[in-house]
């Protein structure tokens, strides 16, 4: 009888966990506070993440989610999605959808889950699980619970990041990590309280964290990186086994050392290849020139493709194999370049780096595998250090490209891996410059010649145009002229691929109506090549301001107006300075020749939200000056 009773308890507890109730009065949406749901498109009512770490080769994740979708924009947050792979498989799933009163609309079954191996790479081992839930009426609540089995390769514990999108508010979200007693783990907490540690009788250590009542975040232009305000907990075991390779990582040095060992002795090339490399570089005694020859050789004979299966995600393909098949990913291609340099006695170091457009730094006090996502090659020379990108040798030799310049990197070594920062370019070097000669006739028609120069970072963003089809180049240059009627009919490009690269584009153009004509007057644009920067909102600012990279927009236009015309009105000179940069505009008229010079300099930096009104005022003046008009009319 007792046995039956115990089984019955188990059964009912189990069933109540898995079976959806017909009514969940607690999910009624009218109880959600206004302040919390303001700005939110979805709100997490309750979220619990449990990770049970049993051994380096076994773990179980269970997550329970109850999320209310408030409107159409939040629809995607109601969908279930889990990125698995060959070491992590979805083992259980159940769920339900409730209406705004908490009445059951329908149940969600494991059989409805779609799994896909789709990947943009050649082969990846990814298995993506998802289920899309169609909304009936807003608001509605999606509830689900699922379990994932981790088998092998537990390099990091599941992260705690309940506010996965800024438009999600959180009422309650709990994180619990269970590890065998005294397991060493490394934790970092952002924008949340520290984890509480507890022990229990069964020799298990518990780490618990909880966040409550977090409002959604309204995104603002030029916000700092999200690690500044989104709650996040990263945790990982210090000792692990990945695809049969054990490791123990306490800091960046030990992580570098582990990776270094995966790369060791994989850089051997066969004799004919070695001879070829020696032959290719025989014509010069300069090390720098030899490196450039091999850098170009790499680009001409290989292409990028990614095969990351198992340890192949961290260990490079053998250099001899990359040489043989002619393709590889960033690890394989870097390994091959490193091997080639080794043949001619040039030492180079494998460097892992964070390649990202939104942030340059990593957490120097917290080492893990997710922060560094790319591999490049450091080549220290007596006067200089080269940082070579093996996946794209079109990048000018010696130029550090935008996705890595100024970024944190880990140079791998057997015992002394160090975090360093790559060189960056001062804002004053990233120039976008226009030099124009324009001639307007009395009927409003104009002909012009413009040369556009892009330097350094501006070059890196724009150089793609040199490889486009001619008709696409024409279209792109035409879009730079902000006139309703204009034709670009001749383009020539000159690319200087030095360590401070530049692209110069000459274009000849004309316009059947340069500006507008009213009666005898002509309203000419002061600068038809600029339309202003940044769409800044006039609201009160909450977040600090961060400009990652500054730049300079430099324009000089020689404008010739018809002989019998005179300037009636033109914009006054402007000279403004702000913490973010400065701007000047001057128009000088000498008979029928006008010289318009406008310079905008923006500096990188970080400022408190309180200076936002200054930022707004600065750009309002810049944008309206660019829109200025010069009015000319015939002499009386």
């Amino acid at each position: 009888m007792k046995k039956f009773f115990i089984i019955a308890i188990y059964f009912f507890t189990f069933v109540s966990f898995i079976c959806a109730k017909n009514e969940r009065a607690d999910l009624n949406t009218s109880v959600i506070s206004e302040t919390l749901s303001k700005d939110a498109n979805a709100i997490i009512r309750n979220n619990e993440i449990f990770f049970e770490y049993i051994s380096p080769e076994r773990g179980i994740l269970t997550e329970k989610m109850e999320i209310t979708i408030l409107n159409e924009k939040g629809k995607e947050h109601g969908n279930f999605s889990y990125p698995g792979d060959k070491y992590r498989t979805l083992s259980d799933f159940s769920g339900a959808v409730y209406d705004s009163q908490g009445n059951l609309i329908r149940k969600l079954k494991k059989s409805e889950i779609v799994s896909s191996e789709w990947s943009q790479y050649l082969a990846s081992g990814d298995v993506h699980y998802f289920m899309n839930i169609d909304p009936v009426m807003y608001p509605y609540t999606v509830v689900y619970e699922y379990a994932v089995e981790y088998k092998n390769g537990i390099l990091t514990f599941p992260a705690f990041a309940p506010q996965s999108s800024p438009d999600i508010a959180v009422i309650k979200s709990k994180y619990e990590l269970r590890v065998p007693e005294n397991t060493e783990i490394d934790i970092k907490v952002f924008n949340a309280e520290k984890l509480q540690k507890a022990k229990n009788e069964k020799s298990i250590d518990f780490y618990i964290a909880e966040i409550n009542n977090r409002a959604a975040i309204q995104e603002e232009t030029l916000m700092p990186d999200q690690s500044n305000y989104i709650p996040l907990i990263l945790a990982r075991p210090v000792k692990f086994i990945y695809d049969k390779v054990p490791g123990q990582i306490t800091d960046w040095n030990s992580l570098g050392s582990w990776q270094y060992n995966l790369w060791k002795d994989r850089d051997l090339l066969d004799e004919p290849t070695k001879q070829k490399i020696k032959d290719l570089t025989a014509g010069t005694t300069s090390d720098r020139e030899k490196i450039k020859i091999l850098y170009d050789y790499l680009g001409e004979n290989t292409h990028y493709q990614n095969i990351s299966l198992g340890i192949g995600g961290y260990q490079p393909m053998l250099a001899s194999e990359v040489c043989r098949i002619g393709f590889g990913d960033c690890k394989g291609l870097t390994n091959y370049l490193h091997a080639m340099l080794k043949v001619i006695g040039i030492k180079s170091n494998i460097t892992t780096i964070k390649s990202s457009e939104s942030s340059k730094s990593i957490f120097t006090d917290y080492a893990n595998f997710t922060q560094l996502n790319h591999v490049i090659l450091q080549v220290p020379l007596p006067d200089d250090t080269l940082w070579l990108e093996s996946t794209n040798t079109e990048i000018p030799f010696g130029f550090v490209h935008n996705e890595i310049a100024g970024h944190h990197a880990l140079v791998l070594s057997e015992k002394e891996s160090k975090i360093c920062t790559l060189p960056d370019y001062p804002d004053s070097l990233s120039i976008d410059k226009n030099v124009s000669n324009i001639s307007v006739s009395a009927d409003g028609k104009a002909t012009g010649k413009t040369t556009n120069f892009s330097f350094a970072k501006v070059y890196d963003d724009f150089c793609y145009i040199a490889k486009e089809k001619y008709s696409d180049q024409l279209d792109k240059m035409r879009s730079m002229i902000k006139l309703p009627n204009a034709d670009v009919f001749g383009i020539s490009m000159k690319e200087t691929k030095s360590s401070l690269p530049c692209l110069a584009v000459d274009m000849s153009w004309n316009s059947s109506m340069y500006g507008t004509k009213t009666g005898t007057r002509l309203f000419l644009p002061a600068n038809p090549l600029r339309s202003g920067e940044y769409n800044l909102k006039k609201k009160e600012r909450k977040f600090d301001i961060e400009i990652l990279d500054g730049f300079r927009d430099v324009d000089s236009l020689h404008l010739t107006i018809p002989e019998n015309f005179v300037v009636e009105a033109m914009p006054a000179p402007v000279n403004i300075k702000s913490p973010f940069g400065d701007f000047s505009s001057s128009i000088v008229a000498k008979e029928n020749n006008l010289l318009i010079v406008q310079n905008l300099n923006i500096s990188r930096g970080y400022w408190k939200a309180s200076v936002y009104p200054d930022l707004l005022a600065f750009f309002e003046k810049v944008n309206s000056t660019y829109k200025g008009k010069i009015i000319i009319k015939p002499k009386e």
Partner: protein
Amino acid sequence: MKRFIFPFFFLFFLPLVIFSQNFSLKFGSVTEDELNMKAYEKDTSAAAVVLYDIGNTYYIYSSDFQVVTENSRKIKILKQEGTKYADVELIYSASDNNSEYINKLEAYTYNLENGKIVKSKVEKNYIFDEKSNKTYHRIKFTFPNVKAGSILEFKYKRTSGRYFDIPDKIMQEDIPIRYISYEILIPEYFIYNIESRGYENIKAKNEIQRQTFTIISNVKGYTVSCSSNKSTYSMTDVPALKDEAYVWNLDDYRSAVRFELNGTKFPNSDYKPYTNTWADIEKLLKENSEFLTNTKKSTSLDEAIKINKTGSNDKDNIQTIFSLIKGKVKWNNEYSLFENEPREAIKKGTGNNAQINSILISTLMKAGYNAYPVLISQRSSGKLPYSYPSIDRLSTFIVGVDGFDGKAYYLDGSSDYGGVNMMPVDLLVERGYIIDDTKTEKWVDLTNLANNREIYIVTGKLDKDGVMKATLNHYLSNEDAFYFKKDFKESKDSAEFIENFETKHDIKISNVNLKGMDMLSADVENTMEFTKNYELAGDYIYINPFIFRDITSNPFTSSERKLPIEFAYPYVYNYTATIQIPENYTISEMPSAVRIVLNDKQGSCLYNIAQNGNSILVNYRFNLKQTIFPHTDYTAIQGFWGQAATKNNEMIVLRKN
């Protein structure tokens, strides 16, 4: 006239005779000219060119018919950017019934190194099979040792159990093709409708060939001999297809040959039509949709039937029914041709447009109206074939209703922001097919169902500081109203919507009143009070009287165009402003009135401006009357828009006395 007969062996040699240089169409044979080639002379900017693509489709029989396609392809990489063509993926379906498989895949890279031809093979362990979802798999591989100058050649064989479904043969890509040929041998048992698409000329040839199959029936095997039709399609120097703005669906213009099964006639059986007439399509639909059978069982909304018909307006009645049904079943963003289980949709509270439409038709019929499906292919799905009825190309249907007033009204379940004759533009196609026995005219043009218009009436007073205080009465009708309501609903909140409006027109709004924003309304009324700042320059104030501009810049900037120009819908944009100028100012200069037309009757732009006492009166009317224009009209369209854009930007000069 004596017919010129082409001997068979000439057909074999003819392709080689076309090229002055030495190119090989034989798999595994790479010539020096091919390896030395530095550019494709007809398009020197091409990063890669397909040297040949040769395909061959035929039927085999083993326990059932199967379709086999063999394809071989040779690509020349001309520039570094072209190396992306080294990545190949072959999609095949592996669902339980009628699955496909790909085999006999061979791929090689050829490079010229120190005068020698070096051949590299794609190895088996570098060929991957990805299960993309329950139905589709992708075979993925990349060629080794690819660089500028490499020749990549591969071939494979695809066998499919779907013998009634021959995929389209695409004959134009985003890189140029030097030579493409496709041969298809179809036994007389299968009758296909075949249609070519695209601007480039596809050479077609047909001939009859005999084929034999061994067919097992009731344990007995016997050989049948049949007459098969061999069609060969070929093209040389096919230019790359470039996407342009204002095109509903680029694939409508891509050179291709399309096949659709018309019917089958097997030995000792009757002819079994699939869909060779619209009556057949109708029959097939009836088998899969309960509303077409119009029985008591078809799902309808009871309360909607009880509306009062006598003495009230058709349009109102129809809309009331529509609104009730939309209230019960929310559209789930999906379109469908077949409406399985509309009852499920009512239970779930959400459904695709076909389910909502079927409930709508049944309910309208029960309420005494003649309602029927109008079959279409959405704009985004491509245009229906012209030469034959096609069920494969249909993507969905909308609802047509005949009012007692004799007018026809159209609706669709996906319309969240409009009632009658207002729906997403994707459904406003030129040809919809009506399934209704009472109608003799079966085709209907849905591109111009209602008068789409946007009217701005501004009354403003300008002061000597260049600040104008004004009121706006803004009216939108039909499609314009639809999209205004949609933008509003999709904005985060009304504050964001207003802010976007302010930024777009550079005004500051102090008061807003919106009317007619409910789903069914075809007329939206937006009343606003706002101010606008103008630049002062000494004694002058310069104002652009166009506060709410229609055309700020000319979107047609390309120098030439190959594809037609397809607009969303015909519309009228009307702008009227009365601006009172400050007391001690006079009008120094004013823009001139103008009348521009597009090709006489397809569009017009009228601009009138006059002084009346101390006010300026502006009246602007832009009318686009046609939706689709051939590419030969591009220059006229470019000029028309350019002139209109100029007028939208012209200034009035006021001078202090």
